[in-house]
């Protein structure tokens, strides 16, 4: 522990370059292990030294400092500690603000690294409100940086903005901001649910959609005339199969007459999330009717065949069947307006879950 403490003196910004570099390299490797992380997190002075070095003029020093922060914030405890300490430091080092600025700066070389730090921090639900205070004025700019693929001129891809937005939608306020029509944030984010080149972008965007779908308040927003969200959900589930002209005309425009080259989402976890979104949307009668009208059943019919033969993920097959079961039924049979108002007694719930597990096992031959 003392040896670690000794490093602090070499990490002062005014120190010689080589001393700083060596000390920081050492610190960075410490953050790679659990004990090392704990040691560093217990030393406020060390953390403050790292904060200082993230803004060092030397590119390598700054980079190592930010990488250290990424490791330190990877878990909830570390994230909270780092965030709270940064707020107290003099002069102020509001870490979310620094990160946001670096991301928005199209010349910043460390934009990607900072985005990972911010992604770690926003994952902690208790910190989101405070971070939102800092980020709110910059949301439009962040969305712009995200949507414009060549935004950063120093090769940062900014893929981690997707998980950042996703984490922000964990809380109600984040969802509200994302869905606010004036800023059209969703419009810019949604197309990336099908972004082939980065699973991080896709995963983050689909996470955003999921958080919104799980909040019933937004179901009407989702299923209004603009099919943006619905298309974002369905597109990764659509394949190259041909539909008749009649069926095609039902679908949202982007999904009509898809070419032979169309492929489905390759990650089964993401497919499952999308199906869960659809399931959430089946909660109310009005929404079910909209889904049927837009040809969701036809899409899932083809998807089910594909998943059974090619995808072969049994959780996905079950998730798909859950949605299809509801969509096939006529409204008189369902008799309920809102599924969520049904109360399931605990022992019954237990039984259903076990039955499902057994069924899932039997699904794939």
């Amino acid at each position, binding site marked *: 522990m003392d040896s670690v403490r000794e490093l602090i003196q070499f990490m002062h910004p005014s120190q010689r370059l080589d001393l700083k570099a060596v000390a920081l390299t050492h610190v960075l490797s410490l953050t790679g292990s659990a004990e090392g992380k704990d040691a560093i997190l217990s030393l406020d002075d060390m953390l403050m030294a790292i904060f200082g070095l993230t803004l060092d003029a030397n590119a390598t020093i700054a980079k190592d400092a930010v990488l250290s922060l990424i490791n330190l914030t990877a878990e909830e405890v570390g994230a909270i500690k780092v965030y709270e300490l940064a707020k107290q430091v003099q002069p102020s080092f509001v870490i979310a603000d620094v990160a946001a600025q670096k991301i928005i700066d199209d010349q910043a070389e460390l934009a990607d690294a900072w985005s990972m730090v911010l992604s770690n921090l926003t994952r902690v639900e208790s910190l989101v409100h405070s971070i939102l205070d800092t980020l709110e004025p910059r949301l*439009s700019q962040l969305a*712009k940086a995200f949507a414009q693929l060549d935004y950063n001129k120093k090769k940062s891809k900014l893929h981690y903005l997707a998980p950042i937005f996703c984490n922000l939608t964990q809380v109600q306020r984040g969802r509200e901001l994302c869905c606010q029509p*004036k*800023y059209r944030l969703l419009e810019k984010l949604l197309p990336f649910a099908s972004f082939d080149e980065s699973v991080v972008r896709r995963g983050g965007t689909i996470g955003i959609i999921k958080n919104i779908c799980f909040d019933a308040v937004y179901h009407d927003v989702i299923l209004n005339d603009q099919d943006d969200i619905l298309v974002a959900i369905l597109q990764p589930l659509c394949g190259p199969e*041909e539909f008749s002209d009649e069926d*095609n005309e039902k679908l949202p*425009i*982007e999904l*009509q*007459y*898809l*070419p*032979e080259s169309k492929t489905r989402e390759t990650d089964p976890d993401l497919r499952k999330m999308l199906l869960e979104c659809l399931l959430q949307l089946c909660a109310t009668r009005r929404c079910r009717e909209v889904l049927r009208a837009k040809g969701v059943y036809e899409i899932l019919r083809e998807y089910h065949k594909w998943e059974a033969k090619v995808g072969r993920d049994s959780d996905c097959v079950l998730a798909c069947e859950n949605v299809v079961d509801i969509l096939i039924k006529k409204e008189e049979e369902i008799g309920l307006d809102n599924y969520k108002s049904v109360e399931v007694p605990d022992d019954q719930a237990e039984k259903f879950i076990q039955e499902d597990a057994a069924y899932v096992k039997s699904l794939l031959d």
Partner: protein
Amino acid sequence: MENLATKKNWTEEERLELAAQLDAELDSFIDSLEKKRYEEGWPEDRWQEEMDKHPFFMKRAPQPGDEVHPMFEGLQKLKYDPEENTLEELALNYKEDGNFYMKHKKFRMAIYSFTEGIKTKCENPDVISVLYNNRSAAHFFIKNYRSALSDAQRALFYKPVYTKARWRAAQCAHELDKFDVCSQLCEELLEVDIDHKEAKALLHKNKMKKLDTERNTRKEAADAKRRLTRFHKLRDAIEQRAIKFDDQPLNKRLNISEELLRPKFLPLEDFPVHLDEDGNTLVWPTAFSYPEFLLSDFQQQLPETTTMSDCLNTLFAEPLPCDRTLSYRPESVNVYYENRKVGCVHKVNLKHTLREILNEKGFFVSGGSLLFYVVPKESRVEQEFIHQQRRPLIYS
């Protein structure tokens, strides 16, 4: 006379005398002047015309090709002479001209003026950007969207914050179906002013147009693919049955194309041979010719599973109008087809299906359709038909 200048004392008489003398001299001088008319004024009968030409009184600007009043030319020189004006003043003069023409909807003249302004190459970017912006507007009104877009973009180059130019560029891009350029410009507009209503609306309209266009392209591709697949199946069915075409040399590989299968008979034009719904049966356009009457009947869609008997029953369900003697009944006629290669005719077995008939050695599809000849049994018409001179078609 005494020297007038030195005379000191004038009597009243002498003064009066001098005055009268001077008067008389003046009169005679005037009288001696040549009598000339004043000709430099406007002729009375054409005074309105002249007035219209005078730069101070003209009501409309001179059009190219009009002869100009010399005073007008002088004013022009003042205005446009590079020696009389700095480049910037010159450019602004042209700008004013252009704006004047715009007000009067003379868009081509406006373009000309703005172009001259731009040609001055004056160094003030604000002036140049306005010239480009205004020229862009002129082009826009006469629907030269490409030029309008390029001018608007030039304006933005000289003045990046020029909102009006950016808005016009966005509209041009929309007209030209440059969807991505349009949406980029709209986003830029909204970044500066998030409440720019028109930009929001255009962004939406543009997106819808883009999605529609993309969908239509996909649909056409899907339709084309479907047609191609259907054609390939048809082609395979024809090859499988080893059907012969007389438009094609026998020994060469058969090249079945849409052209080959297009029916040459007008009534059959829209019914080329095709596979029916179940994908198994060929359906042929067929002509039945009556040598006796020099007429033909056309059956547009005959499945190959039909027998010739069935065909006859259909053809003669009602007697032919020209068949006075009722000789043309299903049981009283023979059906033949021509083998043009050899130059002879073959009789058809009425119990055979079309498919079987087409399979016969001498049967060739001609002009994308089937052709049969119907004559009364054991009649002179039949004999003449059979023995008619036919020259065989020779292929090299």
